């Protein structure tokens, strides 16, 4: 039996009396791109936190490549990485220094060659010796992406990877992610509020609301299920509770 890339079982997180994630079950196959959608407070970030071992579940478990992330994260952390615009790299270190430090942390062999390769792939060469704090938003995102790819991860978790980017840069990032996934057959978990991005990249979408998984399917299945033209409309239906999914037969027709 193939081990799922990520598997949540009755995964639950409470902060005091606030229920952030409500005993959710899910399984994500290796080699897929999964979108995690939901409004603010839906539980996406907490779920990602538990997947990355940053947050301890109140009950239930989440496994990554078979490793329970609250008990044995170091079995698999070297195979994972994470990128978010809400997490920074040290500002005073140059891009090269940052990548070298993270390359060492992940035990990357041939770090200098790896940095050159990333610099070439992500167009960092021009500013590779500039402090990370002096880069534009687009450049910072590319550097953060380079950091998240430094260990050639089997699982890449991205929290709004194109937030606050101009359409050109955002499109360029999406293209790079597609190429990476295709080359590596990596699993990518993507939390995003950009529905176009999710529609373009994801094989499957998990929709969350108030800590629960409220729907799950491929973008085309979701469009058919809600009778909508795009995922943004589906998102609004789910977020505002204004339309229930159509019955299976009707959706199929």
């Amino acid at each position, binding site marked *: 039996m193939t081990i799922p890339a990520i598997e949540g079982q009755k995964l639950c997180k409470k902060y005091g009396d606030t229920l*952030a994630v409500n005993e959710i079950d899910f399984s994500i196959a290796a080699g897929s791109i999964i979108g995690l959608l939901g409004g603010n407070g839906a539980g996406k970030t907490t779920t990602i936190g538990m997947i990355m071992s940053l947050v301890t579940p109140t009950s239930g478990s989440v496994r990554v490549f078979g490793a329970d992330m609250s008990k044995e994260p170091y079995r698999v952390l070297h195979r*994972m990485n994470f990128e978010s615009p809400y997490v920074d790299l040290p500002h005073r*270190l140059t891009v090269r220094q940052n990548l070298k430090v993270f390359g060492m*942390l992940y035990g990357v062999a041939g770090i200098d060659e790896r940095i050159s390769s990333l610099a070439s792939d992500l167009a960092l060469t021009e500013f590779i010796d500039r402090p990370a704090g002096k880069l534009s938003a687009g450049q910072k995102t590319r550097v953060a992406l380079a950091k998240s790819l430094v260990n050639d991860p089997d699982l890449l978790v991205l929290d709004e990877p194109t937030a606050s980017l101009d359409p050109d840069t955002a499109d360029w990032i999406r293209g790079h992610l597609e190429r990476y996934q295709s080359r590596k057959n990596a699993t990518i978990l993507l939390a995003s509020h950009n529905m176009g991005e999710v529609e373009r990249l994801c094989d499957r979408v998990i929709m969350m609301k108030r800590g629960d998984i409220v729907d799950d399917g491929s973008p085309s299945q979701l469009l058919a299920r809600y009778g909508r033209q795009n995922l943004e409309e589906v998102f609004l239906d789910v977020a505002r509770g204004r339309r229930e999914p159509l019955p299976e037969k009707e959706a199929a027709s």
Partner: protein
Amino acid sequence: MSETAIALSPQRIGAMVLRHWYLLRSSWPRLLELIYWPAVQMVMWGFLQIGVAAKPGALATTVSTFLAAFLLWDILFRGQLGYTMSFLEEMWSRNMPNLMISPLRPVEFVIALMVMSIVRLAVGLVPVTIMAMIFFGYNFWGLGFALAAFFANLLLTSWAVGMFCSGLVLRNGLGAEGLAWSLMFILLPLACVYYPVSTLPDWLQPVAWALPPTAVFEGMRALVIEQTFRLDLMLWALGLNFLWITAGAVSLAWLLGEARKAGSFLQIGE
């Protein structure tokens, strides 16, 4: 965590040391800050010694103990600050989640912070001791082997306090940052830095003796005033430090666990 959580990687420790070395090298205010306060205080105490030494009597020896006490206190204070500052740099730069999701084990992170506290201490203290020698003829290094014993004990205490402070900041966010700066000063009156333990009221003396630095400062006074190296005091300090380091490590591990439960890493910087 599984047993692999305690497997050490020199490369990962080296990576963290390198990360902070890059930072230190790139920032002259940080370098200046390391040297500034020890230098200012050394000058102040040095002039005091000169003034007092001009008068005959036992006061000159007393001032020598003051100067040694000041330099040893600085090892304790800056050792803790060096540890905690390197840690706070990760919080300030919002880099902590990146480290926590990397294969870097907490124990490796702690060792890297310890190494950086020695580096920061060396950058700050070595030039100042040389200045003390050049300008005031006070040879701090003349304490010899005893200095190594004092240094090791003070550094161990500073790391124990540093571990506790960093745990508090991890759990409570940068709101607890002030503690990192001020906590060590609680020890200043109780550890009898500038006066013997016998100066304290009887009821407070057991509290003083429960602090590892107290034995170091008593040992320093025995060395400077009586030219006697008190091995018993150093062993007492070492035994206490073992307990303190254990308590620091346990508190850090507990606070790290609490931070994970509270989701603190998702709100870094707040």
